[in-house]
């Protein structure tokens, strides 16, 4: 019964991740009656939220070589009509003369802005928020199915130092800033949709401005914490054969056994590398967003992916598109990290007796340590026997 309940919950969450939100392609339209220009069918297809192939417009921007001589009647507009000029502006096929300098200034209309906005306001909120609610629901379900993981035979009453003060400081610098970043990021992403109807636009404006300040600036604490924890713990998080045995035993969560582990078990290593790799990635995209147009990285990344995987990702991106990709990627990676960290918080607090002490005061119960990190305890005791420290 328990397994069925977990499976049902898993399928419910998994169903959130289907791609049914993607627009259906519009039927092919015969534009011979309009000389290739837009037809009523095109307009109706767009209103029906179908995915219209816009090349009949984006590639129809006039031909200067067809310009009539200036001496001709009604000549010359450079071989292009007003409609064609505006289409050229819309699809960024012009080279305007500008007083304002900078990479983004030459883009007068950015046509990809609306798909980005719709993605951010729609699926990003729906599926990101759904996934967060899903993992919280699964953990509540797991708690009632499995219960709190207790120390077999009860605590020993004596303790052993699990983490030094500097390790705990680095962990909480990373964790505290991540929680602040997560909360303020969600406020910025979802506040317009969910908070304005409740607290009104003026209160939300204050909240959003404060969230933006905290999000932009506490990010540096996150990056410092990320670097600190990486160097302190990377040596203990190198995968080895023991991790396979630990994973095959499911960490002992369902069998109520205690597979052997050193300082970090395979589950903790997965969390470590998830946080490190995704933390690095979310920091890069965050820096790109912090300094608009200064750190474009997606065109180069796409070129690299194309060369390795043979894909056909766009390698020429407008400055705004770089920002939009950075924004979407930042959100996706942040959501995945939040899912992992919520599970990490659960198992490090209410999910397991004695686990919080490791990061609370650094001292864990000896029996807890022997059950969950037996090989690490043996190493520490061997060192202490030789007069060393943990």
């Amino acid at each position, binding site marked *: 019964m328990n397994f069925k309940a977990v499976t049902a919950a898993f399928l419910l969450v998994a169903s959130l991740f289907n791609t049914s939100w993607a627009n259906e392609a519009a039927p092919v339209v015969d534009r011979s009656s309009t000389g290739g220009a837009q037809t009523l069918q095109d307009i109706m297809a767009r209103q029906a939220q179908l995915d219209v192939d816009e090349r009949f417009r984006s590639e129809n921007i006039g031909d200067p070589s067809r310009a009539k001589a200036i001496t001709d009647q009604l000549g010359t507009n450079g071989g292009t009509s007003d409609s064609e000029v505006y289409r050229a502006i819309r699809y960024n096929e012009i080279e305007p003369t500008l007083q304002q300098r900078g990479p983004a200034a030459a883009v007068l209309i950015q046509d990809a802005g609306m798909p980005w906005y719709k993605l951010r306001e729609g699926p990003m909120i729906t599926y990101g928020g759904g996934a967060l609610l899903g993992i919280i629901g699964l953990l509540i379900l797991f708690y009632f199915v499995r219960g709190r993981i207790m120390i077999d035979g009860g605590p020993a009453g004596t303790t052993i130092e699990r983490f030094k003060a500097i390790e705990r400081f680095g962990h*909480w610098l990373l964790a505290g800033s991540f929680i602040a970043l997560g909360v303020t990021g969600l406020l910025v992403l979802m506040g317009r949709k969910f908070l304005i109807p409740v607290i009104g636009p003026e209160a939300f404006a204050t909240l959003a401005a404060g969230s933006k300040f905290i999000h932009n600036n506490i990010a540096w604490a996150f990056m410092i914490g990320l670097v600190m924890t990486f160097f302190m713990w990377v040596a203990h998080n190198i995968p080895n054969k023991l991790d396979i045995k630990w994973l095959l035993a499911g960490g002992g969560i369902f069998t109520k056994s205690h597979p052997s582990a050193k300082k970090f078990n395979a589950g903790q290593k997965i969390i470590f590398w998830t946080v490190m790799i995704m933390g690095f990635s979310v920091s890069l995209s965050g820096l790109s967003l912090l300094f608009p147009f200064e750190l474009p990285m997606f065109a180069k990344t796409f070129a690299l992916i194309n060369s390795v995987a043979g894909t056909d990702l766009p390698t020429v991106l407008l400055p705004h598109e770089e920002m939009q990709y950075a924004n979407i990627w930042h959100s996706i990676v942040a959501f995945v990290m939040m899912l992992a960290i919520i599970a990490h918080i659960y198992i490090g607090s209410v999910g397991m007796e004695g686990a919080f002490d490791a990061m609370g005061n650094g001292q864990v119960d000896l029996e807890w340590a022997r059950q969950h990190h037996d090989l690490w305890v043996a190493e520490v005791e061997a060192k202490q026997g030789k007069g060393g420290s943990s």
Partner: protein
Amino acid sequence: MKAMLCAFAVALVIAFAAPSVLNEFGWSAAERGSSATSVRLN
């Protein structure tokens, strides 16, 4: 718990010090207007 509270306090100090420190290096993310090479969205 001291390490945790200390880390939270340091995170806040970093957050509130960041704008002025970045300004010293000419890296302000809060820069308004535009420069020779950049245009701000905000």
